[in-house]
Each structure stands twice: as C-alpha cells, then as structure tokens.
C-alpha cells in the first residue's frame, strides 16, 4: 500500500481561513510539497503579503515574515542578502504584486535577486471585498468598477509575466493555472523548477498562478474554475516565458 496523497509536512496544522474552494489552498499545498520534496523546509524563509494570504505566515511550516503591502520582494531581498544560502520566497496576490508592489517586483527581477515569487492572480482584490485589480479583465465587474472595467477609464489589464520576462535578471518566468489536476501538476512542476532556479543561483524566479475568487466573482467554487478557463486563460496565456539557459 502506498500513500498517493496526504497533507504535506510543509503546511502547519492550522486550518486556513480561506473561503471554500479558494485556490490559495491548492497553491499553498503545492509550495509546501515542493519545499518538502526539495528537502529545504528547514532552510526556507517565506514572506507573506497583505491580501487574503496575509495569514500565510500561520500556514507554511517554515520561518516567515509578514511584509507590508507590495513590499514582500524588498523584505525577501533583505533576508536573502543576509542569508544567501537559504531559500527565500515571497507569496503575493495581484493587488500586492501588480499594483502597489510594481517597483519592488520589477527590481528583484532587475537585480536578478535569487528569490522565488509565487504570484497568485485572480483578477480581483479578495481580502478587501472585491475591488478592481490591475489584472481585472475588461468588462469584469468589481466593487470599484461597478459597471465593469473599461479600457477608456482604466487601461488594459496588466500581463505581469510577459512584462517581467523582458528583464534579464528574471531567469525563470512561467504562468500556470490550478483549475484541473493536469494543470495543477504542471503548476507544481513550474514551482519546483522556480525554486531549483533559486537553489542553482540562476537569478530571480516567478510563477504566476491563475486562480479563482469564488466569493468576489460571485460564483460557486466549481463554476469559478470554469470562469477561469473561459476568461482568464485566453487573456493570460499559460506557458513558460523564460527559463535559465534559454534565449527567447
């Protein structure tokens, strides 16, 4: 008898506060499993953002620091420059990374900072109740775009992976999704590759994970998966944008 799946040692016993069906849970699991499989849990320091995953410091079974909104990459830089041999990651949502934190994420890529960022993109602000995010789609409703986002007022949604992939220091850039077992397996593979990129000291690594927000999208968890596939994937194509040793 073999155990095919069980709770990862990379997660603490604390039950998460995330909404039912929130893909944060899946993504936390993947990061935890990767760190466990790479046998680096005891050498890892994670940085939690401000957003729904602000309490991530209670869920990952490693040393954690809570950063202010958008600044997790800078906090991670401070940690990594003091402990270059440790594994350091930031875990950020789309408001944290693509709105207030754009300078910080661009500059860790710019510096080729040897940290790994997990970017959870669900095209909305979760914790604060559903406001528009830089990644909210055209026509998508949000509490600060009640008639739906328009190009005229707010511009086109921001494609972070494509943008960061133009920066040389970003050694590994991939966009994945967690809407199905097949995509979740690919997401885990990308996350593992991203952490390996850090361990091999190749540069900055980021995995953008298309995610759901059933509560603020106003959909059931299962319908949210479908909405992600039908709406987010066409605008935010999945795939690898940069990998060490590959010139694109």
């Amino acid at each position, binding site marked *: *008898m073999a*155990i095919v*799946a*069980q709770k990862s040692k990379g*997660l603490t016993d604390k039950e*998460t506060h995330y909404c039912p*069906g929130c893909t944060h849970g899946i993504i936390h699991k993947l990061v935890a499993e990767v760190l466990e499989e790479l046998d680096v849990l005891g050498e890892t320091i994670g940085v939690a953002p401000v957003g729904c995953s602000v309490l991530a410091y209670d869920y990952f079974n490693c040393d954690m620091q809570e950063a202010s909104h958008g600044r997790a990459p800078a906090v991670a830089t401070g940690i990594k420059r003091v402990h270059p041999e440790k594994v350091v990651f930031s875990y950020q949502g789309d408001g944290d990374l693509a709105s207030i934190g754009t300078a910080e994420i661009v500059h860790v890529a710019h510096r080729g900072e040897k940290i790994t960022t997990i970017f959870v993109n669900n095209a909305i602000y979760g914790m604060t109740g559903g406001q528009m995010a830089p990644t909210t789609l055209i026509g998508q409703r949000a509490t600060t775009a009640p008639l739906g986002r328009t190009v005229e007022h707010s511009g086109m949604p921001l494609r972070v992976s494509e943008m960061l992939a133009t920066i040389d220091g970003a050694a590994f850039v991939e966009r994945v999704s967690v809407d199905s*077992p097949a995509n979740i397996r690919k997401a885990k593979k990308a996350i593992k590759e991203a952490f390996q990129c850090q361990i091999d000291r190749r540069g900055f690594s980021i995995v953008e994970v298309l995610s759901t927000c059933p509560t603020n999208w106003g959909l059931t*968890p299962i319908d949210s998966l479908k909405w992600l596939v039908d709406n987010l994937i066409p605008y935010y194509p999945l795939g690898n944008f940069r990998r060490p040793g590959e010139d694109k």
Partner: protein
Amino acid sequence: MAKGKVIFNEDICKGCGLCTTNCPVKIVTMDTTKINIKGFHPATVIEMDKCIGCGNCAIMCPDSVITVERF
C-alpha cells in the same frame, strides 16, 4: 476490487466540491445527509470499491482533507 482508497478528514472539509470535479470514476460526492462541525456538507465516497487511487480528488482539494492510498 478497489485499486485505491480515500480517507476524508471530514471536520476540516469546507464543502467546496472541487474534489468532485475530476474523479475519473465519479465516486466523490458531497454528503448531503450530514453537516460537519463547520456546518458544511463534507465530501465523501460511497462506492469505495471503484476507487482507482488516482489522487485527483486530493490534488484539487484546497484544504488537504483527503488522504489517498493505492494498493
């Protein structure tokens, strides 16, 4: 003869239903006959002998509710 077995930690299930979406033998359901300590209908499997131990349900679960064994 079952190839696999799933164990649900019922009390931590949030009733989201994601585990029911990708079972190849369609045996994962939400147990509408009961509610757990959180007030949700927990996920369950009634026809365990059909389980192939693929792990899809556990992969989808955001809360690590499911342990999957394969024989």
